[in-house]
């Protein structure tokens, strides 16, 4: 396992590279999903303030 983490002496380069990639790829999904959820609840609140709409 330590051998794997060591990456033939290049672990200090390989792992940060993969870490940056992981962070950016996850943010790419989390940010829009959260934005969508917030948008929906904001629009619901807005709807309530304006009163119920006719069907």
């Amino acid at each position, binding site marked *: 396992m330590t051998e794997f983490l060591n990456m033939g002496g*290049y672990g200090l380069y390989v792992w940060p590279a993969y870490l*940056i990639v992981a962070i950016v790829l996850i943010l*790419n999904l989390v940010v829009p999903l959260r934005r969508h959820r917030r948008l929906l609840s904001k*629009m*619901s609140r807005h*709807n309530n303030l304006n009163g119920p709409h006719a069907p």
Partner: protein
Amino acid sequence: MSALSLAFHRLASLPYFYSLAGKLLPWAGGLSIVLFGVGLYMGLVLAPTDYEQGDSYRIIYVHVPAAWMSMLVYVVLAISGAIALVWRLKLAEVVARASAPIGASYTFLALATGSIWGKPMWGTWWIWDARLTSELILLFLYLGYMALQSAIDDRRTAARAGAVLALVGVVNLPIIHYSVEWWSTLHQGPTVSKFDSPSIHLSMLIPLLLMALAFKIHFVTAILARIRPEILVREQRTQWVERLISQRQS
């Protein structure tokens, strides 16, 4: 209208695409997680060490897919921009706007991982050679596009202005690709798109292609996730969105 163009018009309608994106999203996300799992295991564990670069070469499994995607997403941006310009199709405007930040993030990843790879192998984090410089210009094109989008309030006007910028930047794509052949650079020549062998051993190529596929499906997931709130914002005053909101409340 033929059945095909009818199906196309239905697909391109924003309410339909909004719900379709919602249905596809978990599947695309799940598939990309599986592909990343297999690709990472093969690339980091199964693939052999490189004869010249040792284990540092394993950065290739994120660097090259990110670099490919940075260009592929730009193609998506430019083509959807062109469709938005010529046919004024709303879905094309939404796709263009949603793809830009994702493309920018892939470009950033290609530059960052390349820099981390360059330090131990080349001996420098950065050099102003044709490949690195043209890839940096690609990042600025994305950022310029995004700045333009946020500077113009009306989304339809912003889409057209952005499309012109995106189309002007298309010329950068062949420059990035051929930079290592047209000019002398520190960056080496192409590996995978070369026809004579051996450029990359099969045991190293398969994980690379798997990771590239994982990145592609990640892009599909990310753009679907971005398209949904974008459609809601554009259509917030329409009946179907109000119906959607009141359905959610009941």
